[in-house]
Every structure is written in structure tokens, then in C-alpha cells.
């Protein structure tokens, strides 16, 4: 099993989730994040004091998938999350040793 972590633009969340569901992904977990990278932040001004905000709002997805789904999950995210503009984000893949469903105690592939 693998864990796919994707960092995407917030307004792409629903589109990506729908595409993944269509692919057969049964679940995923989402966290609000802030990203630093090539995409520039912005400047806020308060009573004349300029304040550079270097971080950009991002959404972090974590999706545990069985090995055979990994490539299709990565491709789907790649397709749906891309806008072609700087800051579209990243996909990272990790090996996962164990998965358990808390409700039932199911292990591994069963648990996803």
C-alpha cells in the first residue's frame, strides 16, 4: 500500500475529489495548509506598513491506496489539479506498512 500526499490549490478540491471517487477511491483526508514555493505570496498594507505574506493557501490531500491504484491516482490528480500556472502543487508518494480500519479492525487493503 502507498500513501499519496498531494498539495493542491484550494479551489480544485471538489474537482479532484470527484475524479478520485470516479476512479474507485473510497476515502481521503484533507488538511488546510500554507505553501511556500515558486508562486509568490502577496502584500498587505495596514496603516501604511507593508507586510509581505510569503505563504499561499493550499490544500493537502492524503490518500491511502493499494499498490495497483497508485499510478492511476497520481495521474488523475495530475490531470484534474493542473491549471498550468505556477503554484499548482506537488504529489508525493510514500510506502505504507500497515492500514487498519478502526471501526472493524480490518487490516491493510481491506481497511482502505
Amino acid at each position: 500500500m502507498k500513501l499519496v500526499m498531494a498539495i493542491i490549490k484550494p479551489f480544485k478540491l471538489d474537482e479532484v475529489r470527484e475524479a478520485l471517487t470516479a476512479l474507485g477511491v473510497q476515502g481521503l483526508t484533507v488538511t488546510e495548509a500554507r505553501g511556500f514555493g515558486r508562486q509568490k505570496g502577496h502584500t498587505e498594507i495596514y496603516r501604511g506598513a507593508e507586510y509581505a505574506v510569503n505563504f499561499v493557501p493550499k490544500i493537502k490531500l492524503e490518500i491511502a491506496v493499494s499498490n495497483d491504484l497508485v499510478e492511476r491516482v497520481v495521474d488523475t490528480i495530475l490531470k484534474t489539479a493542473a491549471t498550468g500556472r505556477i503554484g499548482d502543487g506537488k504529489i508525493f508518494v510514500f510506502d505504507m506498512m500497515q492500514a487498519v480500519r478502526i471501526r472493524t479492525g480490518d487490516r491493510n487493503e481491506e481497511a482502505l
Partner: protein
Amino acid sequence: MIRLILRHAAIAPLALLAACLSAPAWADGPTLDRGDTAWMLTSTALVLLMTIPGLALFYGGMVRKMNVLATIMQSFAVTCLVTVLWMVIGYSIAFTEGNAFFGGLSRFFLAGMGTTAVNTLAPTIPESVYMCFQMTFAIITPALIAGSFADRMKFSALVWFMSLWLVLVYSPVAHMVWGPGGWLGSSGVLDYAGGTVVHINAGVAGLVCALVLGKRHGYPKVPFPPHNLVLTVIGASLLWVGWFGFNAGSAVAADVRAGMAMASTQIATAAAALAWMFAEWLVKGKPSLLGIASGAVAGLVAVTPASGFVLPSGALVIGIAAGVLCFFASTSLKNALGYDDSLDAFGVHAIGGIIGALLTGVFATMAVTGATDPVGWIDGHAGQVITQIKGIAVTIVYDAIVSLVILWVIDKTLGLRVSEDIEREGLDLGLHGEVVP
């Protein structure tokens, strides 16, 4: 509130005479007017609204989230402290007969303020109402100071500082400008609703505090962005609405003068807000909500001494001047001089108050006061501007010296600043054991 001296010299005798002649036979006594009383009860509520929740939110929205409760606490606690101190001694010092600098002790613990009491400064309303109305001014003035030292003063130090300042600075200055026989009032200084007594007084004390306490850790390298401008705008809006009680209430009557004061207030405020907004738009590229709200407050401050003395056109000019100049004071000037007046108590209140006090000398006019002699420069009486400068200077010097002494004493005893840890983790938790999650 109205300078009675001038009023006496002009419209007031007539009014008093008329009041006596018409003599409505209420059980309240012959001179009380229920319309005036209704308006002054309302004005008192409006001015209290300015501090809580108005000023509390205006300031609370501008600090970081971890300090919002502590900042609001400052306004709330000052409201309570001043109420009790005003009852005990403040009102007596400010508004009873005494000498040119201090009143007497005849209203110590409000002794004698029963159902028949009337203060000659407010002959048509019960003294209890006048005392309450003036109390709300005494409340907001020290509360304004707190903007300058946001994010770093100990709460215990604040309790002491505010209490001493009220008794040693606010009450005497109010007496000098407005009290019976007060020195500055008798010298002809015009201050309709508190340009010197409230705003210059608070702003200068604020600057002294900012200098004595020193900068926040990291200032100006680390940014301190406001955590919630929604709160700030609610506050600015309530300040605006409440200010009708402040300025139009300073007529101490529901009369034409109150109407003129309301019109001037509204016009100067809007003009200042737009002036700040357009100045910022030009200089910084974007008009900001904090900017327009700050401009509104600057306009309210500047029109305060002028409100019952000037025509709408004068108010328009005062507003524009205040908006543009306070914008520069709170941005360029502050940055150039490097002091950390965190929420611009000095940049808005002292600078705005000075602009207003000076321009009152320019635009005050017989057409509004009903005086028979020229009032301001616009009437041909250029000397009034000099008189105004005197009022400003005396207030600044007295205020700065006494504030400095009070701070020095507290610093040597209790200490003024919170620890660096509390400053970093937030005053809400460190001082009050509470947080907004």
C-alpha cells in the same frame, strides 16, 4: 461640551431668560426641560457605547489574535474604574467651583447630588444626568491612551496608571477648559466637545507611554497585522454613531446648536474618511478598509472641538485636512521617527485634535454661536488662533509632564511591561488566563 463662557456672552442669556419666562411648571423644578433631558439621557448612552463596545472593538480588531481579549479588557476595565473614581472625586475636581485649576470637594462621593441638584453649566437638566454625561467623557479619554502601548503593558500597571491619570490629569484639564472658573476656558479657548481635554490629552499621554514602555519585541521588523478588521469596523461605526452623543450632546440641550453640531460631525467625518482613503489609494495603490475607518475616526476627532462653532462648509475643510494629515502622521511620520505607537493613539488623536483645535480658531463663527462679536478668524478675529495654540500648548505640557511622572513611579514599583514570554505567548493567556481559540 459647550464653553459656557462664550455661550453666556451670546445666546445663553436669551435662552435662560426665555426658559424662565416660559417656565413650564413641572414638578422637577422650574428650569428643567424634558426634551433636553431626554436628549442628554440618550447622549450619555451613546457616549458609553463609544467605549464599550466601540473603542474596545476598534482596538481589539487591530491587535494580534492572542491579545484581543487583553485589549478589550483594557477598555472595559477603564470604564469600570473611571466610573467609580468619577463618582468618588473626579466629577468634583472637574465640575465644581474651586480655583482656576481644580474644582472643590463639594461633590465628593456625589454628596448633595439629590433630586433637586442642578449644575449651572447645564441648567435645564438634572445634575445626575450631567454628571453621567460627563462621566462617559472621562471614561473614553484614558481608554484611548491604551492604543499606544497595546500588546505590552501589565494589567496591574494599567489599573494604577489609568486611575492616577484620571485624577491627576483628566479631571484638572477638564476643569481648566470647561469647569466653572477654569483657566483656559476663561482665557477664551474654544473646545466644544473635547479636542484638547479628550483627544490631545489622550494622544499625548499615549505618545509618552509609547516612548517610556518602548517598542514591542521585533518592531518594526516583524509585522503585526490586525487579526480581524471586521471588529475594527464595527468599532469605528459605533464610535461614529456614538459621537453624535459626544458632539451634539455637548450642546447639553436638544436645540439648534445640537443640530448644527450633528451636521458638522457627520460631514467632517465623511470628508476625512474619503480624504484618507483617496490619499492611500494614490500613495499605496489601494483604498483599504482600515484606511477609510481610520480616516473617519480622524475626522471625528478633528471636528470635536469645532462641532458647535462652525458651519457645514467649515466642517468639510476640517475633515479633509484631518484625513490627509492624520494619514501621513500615522504612516510616514511614525515610521520616520520610529516610536511604536501601536494603534496610533498619537497619530490620530493628538494630531487630529491639534488640527481640529487650530481650525476651530479659524472657522468658528457667530453664524453658529449666535455671538454678537466675531468668534474665529473667518469672522475676522485672527487672535482666536493664538488663543487656541495656547490651549493646545498648555494641555500638551501639563499632560506630558504628569504622565511621565506617573509612569516613572509605576515603573520603579510595579513595573510597566509584561515579561518577554507573555508578550510572545499572548497577553490573553498570560494576564487573563483566557483565549480566543
